[in-house]
């Protein structure tokens, strides 16, 4: 039985088309994926991302725990900053990819993928270091993503500009948004300017209504999971279960920036050393033939299998079909021409630089 987010009734009220996703009933779309995608690129969109999991780390050794279970480095992080990291298994595969919010020297908030929440929490609880407490607070929290160039103007109608986070990947806690206390970060999964707002679960319906009302004249539309996926693909952001999983290493899928091999030790480090130089690499493909290449299509160079696609569809803002893929290094240079097998026929595609879209 799927769970409902605190906004389930609101989605029905707003005409969301509900589907099961990662154990939750969520809207895949409201008026249409393309319209919602374009609204985020050109005005603003509001997403319910309350299915995301939140784990609170506290204690004198919270930092040590994070540095051990995550491949990124948090020692130099300031309070009010957000940092992305993969969390690896001992084989060097990815358990999950996540965000860390530094609330205080001994207090960090981890935001994880909904589908991995239980697996993550079990793993985390088994790998705590010293004086660290980890608590799954997902059910108490709701998360809304306000994304798009008009986001700032919409929020400044409710909150003074000084109260909002300024730099990318920074946040401010306890911001009063029309009487609702929110943690607001300059983060998102769309490639457009935007914010993510966390509040108590019971406040979510009021926050949704407040934001929709504030954005009414500024082109704000409610958005579903469909547009969330096309937007992140257009921005070439990897998605767990697609561009990475328990087998794929972060170095193979282009997450080197979040893997600090010079760090003393972290789970998975030795495996990454043992695995050596990655033989495959994540690439972008622009479809040059006729059709759409989706995930899990086998890629060929001539008659040689060289990889598989991990995500792909028609991208509404770029108005063309693109895909991301994991391919053998020798076939990963931009300009390389490959073919994907789709429903019994071959569709040509060319390796192009990532990201496809840069806001």
């Amino acid at each position, binding site marked *: 039985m799927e769970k409902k987010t605190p906004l389930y009734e609101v989605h029905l009220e707003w005409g969301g088309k509900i589907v099961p996703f990662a154990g939750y009933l969520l809207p895949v779309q409201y008026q249409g994926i*393309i319209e919602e995608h374009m609204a985020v690129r050109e005005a603003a969109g509001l997403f319910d991302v309350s299915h995301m999991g939140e784990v609170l780390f506290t204690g004198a050794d919270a930092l040590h725990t994070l540095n051990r279970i995550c491949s990124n480095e948090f020692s130099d992080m300031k309070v009010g900053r957000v940092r992305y990291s993969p969390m690896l298994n001992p084989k060097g595969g990815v358990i999950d990819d996540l965000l860390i919010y530094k609330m205080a020297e001994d207090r960090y908030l981890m935001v994880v993928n909904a589908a991995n929440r239980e697996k993550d929490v079990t793993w985390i609880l088994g790998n705590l270091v010293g004086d660290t407490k980890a608590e799954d607070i997902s059910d108490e929290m709701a998360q809304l993503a306000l994304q798009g160039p008009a986001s700032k103007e919409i929020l400044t109608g409710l909150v003074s500009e000084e109260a909002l986070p300024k730099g990318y990947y920074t946040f401010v806690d306890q911001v009063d948004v029309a009487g609702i206390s929110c943690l607001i970060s300059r983060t998102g999964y769309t490639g457009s300017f935007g914010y993510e707002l966390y509040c108590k679960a019971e406040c979510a319906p009021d926050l949704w209504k407040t934001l929709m009302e504030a954005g009414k004249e500024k082109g704000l539309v409610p958005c579903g999971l*469909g547009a969330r996926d096309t937007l992140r693909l257009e921005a070439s952001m990897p998605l767990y279960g697609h561009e990475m999983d328990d087998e794929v290493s972060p170095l193979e899928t282009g997450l080197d920036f979040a893997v600090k091999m010079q760090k003393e030790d972290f789970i998975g480090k030795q495996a990454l050393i043992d695995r050596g130089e990655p033989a495959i690499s994540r690439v972008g493909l622009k479809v040059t033939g006729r059709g*759409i290449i989706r995930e899990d299509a086998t890629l060929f160079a001539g008659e040689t299998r060289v990889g598989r696609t991990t995500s792909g569809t028609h991208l509404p803002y770029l108005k063309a079909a693109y895909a991301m893929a994991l391919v053998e290094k020798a076939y990963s240079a931009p300009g390389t021409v490959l073919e994907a097998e789709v429903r019994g026929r071959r569709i040509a595609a060319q390796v192009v630089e990532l990201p496809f879209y840069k806001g």
Partner: protein
Amino acid sequence: MNYPEHLLYSKSHEWVEFTSEDTAKVGLTDFAQDQLGSLVFVNLPEVGDPITAGEALGDVESVKAVSDVYSPLTGTVSAVNEDLLDTPEAINQDPYGAWLVEVEGITDREELLSAEEYETLCQGEG
């Protein structure tokens, strides 16, 4: 939802308009385009291709998924609506104007429904 009286309908949501005894145009119904969502790609057969009732004649793709279009008729493709290759959204905007193929030499057909029967079917599925 629109169900023009002068058309016949397949249970797999294609419409058929007979222009003579053994020639017809085939398209996707209003119900079908609404269920599929905004279409971004259409894959159609070529003129001269034989098509068989109950088998795929091509496919249409939305951002979210690819779906087969089933042929309600057995015959030979005599014309293809090439305009749709560049403007697949025409199927969403005008489903009964945006024909996909014209079929000639029709020798067999799927069970076809009247507008009224088809509307009842859609109400059960919608």
